[in-house]
């Protein structure tokens, strides 16, 4: 078994890991009951799955330029995925698209109540 064959097998293993993470996200999307838990499942291929398939591409590449191109892909995905996840979670909480009976703890409701009290008292003073 030469080095190229070993690299082929290694990148195939990493590809399979990424594919399985995508499949887990798909199953979670189809089966989970509310947007917040679906969000938890859908973030799997965005960072971890992408990391695995990029490692697979990097093992196959013969030039350093290709590997250098892989880092910005992961960097931009890591920068933008939390932004969209934050916005979706915020909108899901505010429009009450979540199942309260599935929540163990809701720490955000305390902060929302406090902000509303502070705004009400501030309006009284002015």
């Amino acid at each position, binding site marked *: 078994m030469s080095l190229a064959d070993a690299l*082929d*097998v290694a*990148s*195939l293993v990493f*590809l*399979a890991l*990424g*594919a*399985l993470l*995508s*499949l887990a*996200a*798909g*199953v979670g*999307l*189809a089966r989970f009951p509310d*947007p917040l838990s*679906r*969000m938890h499942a*859908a973030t799997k*291929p*965005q960072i971890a*799955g*992408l990391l695995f*398939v*990029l490692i*697979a*591409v990097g093992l*196959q*590449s013969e030039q350093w330029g*290709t590997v250098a*191109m*892989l880092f*910005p*892909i*992961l960097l*931009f*995905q890591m920068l*933008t*995925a939390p*932004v*969209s996840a934050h*916005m*979706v979670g*915020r*909108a*899901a909480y*505010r*429009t009450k*698209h979540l199942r309260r009976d599935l929540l163990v703890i809701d720490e955000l409701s305390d902060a929302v109540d406090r902000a509303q009290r502070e705004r009400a008292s501030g309006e009284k003073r002015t």
Partner: protein
Amino acid sequence: MTILQASFIAVGVVFFVAAALAVFRIVRGPSILDRMIATDMLVATLICTFAAEMVYSGHTRSLTIMLILAMVAFIATVAVTRYVSKQDPS
């Protein structure tokens, strides 16, 4: 067909099933937020599939597509959720 080729086909089938489940959630999704979550995941799966295809064919032409998708995929989600949360005071 070698074992390596068969494994690549298996990887492709797994990616296809993941994307099909995401499309199922986009069609079914009770709220628009479910649809945006599924769209995000579909784009992530698409990027991973581009990478898998590059490993299979041994070229590097899809790298720029992956980079552009990773950069701009979140804009649609942000735009939609911005208008969904109407109670936003700012």
